């Protein structure tokens, strides 16, 4: 499949080194200590931070530092093809099976479901762990002994790069909660398709099976806190791809700093809410081509159907 056409444009009309449009909003969850919504193109993630608060499970209490916990989940409606609800549905069917003693065929069907759910759960546990470790690295946990910080992130719309979006949202939420940190961690992904390094992969590019390098950095300290790749790449290509992802992280960092500064400034002045819009930030200066993907939700009788339109406009 052709991911970069001869004109040098990607499937959604971006240049190879162009990032999707960023949008961040701080203070989305009323009851949380800190919260944020972060969007990268059509990927939309909400994060809520509770704490530092009393440790719920006494045995987990750490005497000289704070306990950081993270929970990642994906909303059922976040993906294009709607998945079955993980626990409730399948167990119900399993129970029915047990009661009515269904045929072998039925049983196989149920098993498939359970296995699919198993893989989803494993994936979300892994991402929870990744986010937790990344955030723990930057939080000054020793300043809040015997307490616990809970980070909840949920994917509202998945269109590739959810891991990065989750980390960015969590950073903003932690900054909003007034938790001391070394730096604002930011994350961005990059890939390598059609022998071109591509910044900020979307779902179609992500599922192409090529390498996907997710990088998390501390921009001011110039340190890498997260590096993940699920494929093989020659070392010199890898360096290029990673460099691209780092550039992306820095661009996101600028945006995040701007948003949190504006928020803080306004709170100090009058303390009001804030929604900041900003159009396409680019890691490299590119031709001013702006592309967007319009998602139209059509509510049919039983499920949400996602219809995608693509359009290219020149500004």
């Amino acid at each position, binding site marked *: 499949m052709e991911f970069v056409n001869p004109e040098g444009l990607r499937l959604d009309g971006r240049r190879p080194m162009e990032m999707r449009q960023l949008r961040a909003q701080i203070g989305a969850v009323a009851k949380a200590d800190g919260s944020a919504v972060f969007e990268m193109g059509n990927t939309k993630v909400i994060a809520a931070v509770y704490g530092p608060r009393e440790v719920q499970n006494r045995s987990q209490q750490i005497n000289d530092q704070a306990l950081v916990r993270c929970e990642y989940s994906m909303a059922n409606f976040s993906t294009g093809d709607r998945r079955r609800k993980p626990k409730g549905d399948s167990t119900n069917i399993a129970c029915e099976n047990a009661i009515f003693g269904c045929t072998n065929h039925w049983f196989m069907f149920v098993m498939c479901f359970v296995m699919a759910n198993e893989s989803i759960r494993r994936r979300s546990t892994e991402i929870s762990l990744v986010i937790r470790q990344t955030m723990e690295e930057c939080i000054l946990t020793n300043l809040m002994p015997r307490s616990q910080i809970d980070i909840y992130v949920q994917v509202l719309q998945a269109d590739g790069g959810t891991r990065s979006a989750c980390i960015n949202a969590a950073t903003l939420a932690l900054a909003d909660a007034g*938790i001391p940190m070394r730096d604002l961690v930011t994350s961005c992904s990059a890939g390598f398709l059609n022998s071109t390094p591509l910044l900020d992969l979307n779902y179609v590019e992500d599922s192409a099976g090529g390498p996907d390098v997710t990088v998390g950095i501390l921009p001011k*300290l110039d340190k890498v806190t997260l590096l993940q790749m699920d494929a093989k790449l020659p070392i010199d290509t890898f360096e290029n791809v990673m460099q691209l992802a780092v550039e992306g992280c820095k661009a996101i960092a600028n945006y995040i700093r701007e948003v949190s500064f504006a928020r*803080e400034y306004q709170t*100090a002045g*009058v303390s*009001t809410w804030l929604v900041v819009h900003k159009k396409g930030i680019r890691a490299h200066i590119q031709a001013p081509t702006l592309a967007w993907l319009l998602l139209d939700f059509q509510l049919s009788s039983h499920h949400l159907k996602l219809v995608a339109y693509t359009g290219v406009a020149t500004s």
Partner: protein
Amino acid sequence: MRGIEISLNQTQKIRLQRALKQLESLYLRANFNASVTVADTIPVSNEDTILKGHGTSERDGEVVATLCGVVERVNKLVYVRTLRARYKPEIGDIIVGRVVEVAQKRWKLEINFSQDAVLMLSSMNLPDGIQRRRTALDELNMRSIFEENDVVCGEVRNFQNDGGIQLQARSQKYGKLEKGQLLTIPPYLVKRQKHHFHHLEQYGVDLILGCNGFIWVGEHVDARDCIVEDQLNNTEQQFTKSNTTKEMPLETRRSICQIANAIRVLSILGFNVTLEVILETIDLSSTLNLGIDEMLGPEFHVLVAEREAERRTSMTKRKG
């Protein structure tokens, strides 16, 4: 602002924005460049030595913020005051909390701090008012003083070694709060003042502005002092009397809701909550003849914001 998203129409939106812009510009004049975010460098002059306070750290010889907030400088001390964080206790603060656990000789209170606060049985007055050693019997009867989920008012006594705090309630004004509403607002909106207990005589309502952002609005109780004298005579009778709750008049209920809504509006807009501002807001609502429920509507929010902008402008003019 967080929480309630008020649905404003176009004109209201413009009016609110204008008022808030005005407030912001006043702030800009007062403190220029004082806001920082995480990992921003705080400019300090190299000539004199400085003390690094909360929310700062050193990196390559530069002072760097570890929080988002406002830089404060007191003589040599430089620190970052964060706005939307949890409560930072100081000794002597008057706070309102909720009992989450009754433990050995102590109650654990949720006070919006990173740990639960501890209220020792020995650091509060017994209901019979006698000063004596606490016996095992007192310990068994702890639930008759405070139960789980009770709202309690107290004072920060000292810090423990592990960073937790101890409270005391060794005065008649402290203790259990009943018949009223508990409001939780961000703690930075409550400034430390001389008085945190207020008796609003015209409404017959007690108002306690806890430093931890927990605010109590309840029916006025003046009997706390008398109880002691009474109880010396007939403890039994007093006990039954306090349990049979006397019906609260409708008028008082109304004023409690009115005051609570005034505080809600102020905290949604992010204005500091002080007695004068609360009273002014209530006055504004009663001069407009607004119903209590209408106080949470968009129009009133805009009006309060506009009036606050006006007030601060006139204040700065007077100063200038």
